[in-house]
């Protein structure tokens, strides 16, 4: 085990795969860590494999996606970092119409071992056109795996799996996670997709949370524990494939559910979980499923204006209380 940041955990996985897979291309490496951070191993990879690294591609998201997907279809794995998810929407056609359908439409002749990385969520201070968590849109279309990691260890393990997978994978990271520290297993470490993690066990209510909101949920669970409410926090880690069994098994125990994530409410992650639980755990539900998401309004610029859009532990506690009534 080593202590490192979330960003370093991710880069650890990327660096290891760049060494092990001599066909892999790394595109947009300048965005992996953010401007301030330094990572000697990544710098070494940039120098040693200069032919396979495109540090800062042109501002051409759809062609950058094509570059990664075409390379992957040819048998050379690729990772492309798009900076922000709000920009990656420019590449959606390549994601769903090329990467997502290729394996199925070719009758299995083509695989697309490509990984697309981007930041999601409210960008502190930034402009509205930079703040988006559009993962539920991609989840609505078949063929793309979606990773929402919440800890340094998980991002290393999930990124390693993504970089070994034969399927296209989108990895969305929240900016507030990047500097978060934690213990990360050394050496080769992978986490299978479709396996949720129970971050905290509890009996009274299930909080399904993703990405940065896992930590908000855990903080809320602490507060609730002090009041005698035992909350279970379930982190799906990948939303495609989704570990439905783990979520339903928790709900069967607690009978109450709050979903906390960063996607807008309408047709968001919470809608899928709400519909799933309402259909498949109907007899165990003691209260309606409550979805806690940012309001269906564009996210404004500036920390003050953004306050109503931030899901805080207090809001989670309030939502839990509402399902306990």
């Amino acid at each position, binding site marked *: 085990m080593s202590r490192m940041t979330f960003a370093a955990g991710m880069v650890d996985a990327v660096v290891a795969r760049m060494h092990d897979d001599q066909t892999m291309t790394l595109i947009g490496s300048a965005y992996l860590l953010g401007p301030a951070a330094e990572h000697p191993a990544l710098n070494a990879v940039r120098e040693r494999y200069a032919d396979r690294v495109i540090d800062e591609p042109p501002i051409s998201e759809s062609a950058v996606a094509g570059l990664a997907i075409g390379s992957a279809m040819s048998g050379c794995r690729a990772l492309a970092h798009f900076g922000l998810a*709000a*920009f990656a*929407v*420019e590449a*959606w*056609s390549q*994601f*769903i*119409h090329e990467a*997502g*359908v290729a394996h*199925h*439409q070719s009758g299995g002749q083509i695989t697309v071992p490509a990984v697309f990385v981007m930041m999601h969520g409210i960008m502190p201070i930034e402009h*509205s*056109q930079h703040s*988006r968590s*559009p993962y*539920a*849109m991609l*989840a*609505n*279309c*078949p*063929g793309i795996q979606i990773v929402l990691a919440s800890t340094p260890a998980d991002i290393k393990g999930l990124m390693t799996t993504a970089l070994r997978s034969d399927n296209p994978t989108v990895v969305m990271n929240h900016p507030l996670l990047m500097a978060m520290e934690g213990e990360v297993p050394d050496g080769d470490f992978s986490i299978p997709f479709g396996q949720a993690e129970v971050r905290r066990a509890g009996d009274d209510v299930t909080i399904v949370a993703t990405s940065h909101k896992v930590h908000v949920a855990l903080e809320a669970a602490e507060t609730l524990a002090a009041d005698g409410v035992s909350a279970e926090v379930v982190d799906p880690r990948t939303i*495609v494939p989704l570990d439905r069994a783990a979520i339903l098994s928790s709900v069967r125990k607690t009978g109450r559910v709050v979903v906390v994530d960063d*996607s*807008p409410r*309408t*047709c*968001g*992650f*919470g*809608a*899928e*979980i*709400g*519909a*799933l639980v*309402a*259909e*498949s755990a*109907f007899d165990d*539900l003691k*209260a*309606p*499923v*409550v*979805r806690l998401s940012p*309001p*269906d*309004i*564009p996210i*404004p610029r500036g920390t003050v204006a953004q306050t109503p859009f931030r899901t805080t532990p207090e809001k989670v506690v309030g939502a839990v209380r509402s399902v306990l009534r």
Partner: protein
Amino acid sequence: MQQTERQISLKAAVIEAIAEEFRRDPETFYIGEDVGVAEGIFKQTQGLHAEFGDRRVIDTPISEAGMFGLTVGAAVAGMRPVVEIMFSDFLTLVMDQLVNHAAKIHYLSGGGFRVPLVLRTAIGVGGVLGSTHSQTLYAWPAHVPGLKLAAPSTPADAKGLMTAAIRDDNPVLYFEDRMTYNLKGPVPEGEHIVELGVADIKRKGSDVTLIAFSRMVHVALEAADALAAKGISAEVVDPRSIVPLDTETLIDSVARTGRAVVIDGGHESYGIGAEVAATVSEGAFDYLDAPVMRIGAPHNPVPCSKPLEAMMVPSADQVVAKVERMYG
């Protein structure tokens, strides 16, 4: 509103709404690929170019992002454009202009600008057009705050919703299932408005609520007939617009019947069906006798093959089977 027995097709009803609004308001124009002299690949702009000419019915290159950007700019400048994106699949190509511009300009300008445009696009599986010309991608814009969405199922609703959409001061995405284009029904002559956000009960019933969008309304009506023969009285509710969603009517219906199935032509996972099922399950929680169920397209691309694509469209049989399961 003047009632009439006149029967016209859904496609003709949409064109009629556009033509009437274009006559009323000279600050309107239509833009898209092959929409002019060719009158659209499904003849869905028939007569518009002949009446309104090159200046107001404009052909473009295969450049969706460019033409949609043009539309947003014209709307901000005060026009009321209708832009046609041939298939909803191609919304993927206008994402930045749609998500980061059209949807946000009004809000971010503090109300200073309005974006009164209509984006008209085709949805639905049929005719073997393959994975990139058959999707029903309305869950995507539904997920973007600032956009309104309409999806008519009948010719009369098609006319009324298009009229409302053109007069709306916000960007409205208007989804037509291309397999309903030739569906005929009574359509009022002259001005006919169906307000966005008002659901319509297409069939009254008391045992189960079938909530369906666009072409799926007809699947639901077929299922309701079959259920009636089995002694089950199904109510069919057509939300007509997806955003805003008439949650009150939906929840009210489900509270009366105690059971609901949501039928959606888009992919089931993370789709419109999930949104409606979650909303109804929450809002009618205390009245539900059975879990709210969803039927949507399976989680695979639409194959370019007649027998394979048939599996991508929810059927009345599936609806009946789900309802029967509730009575297990």
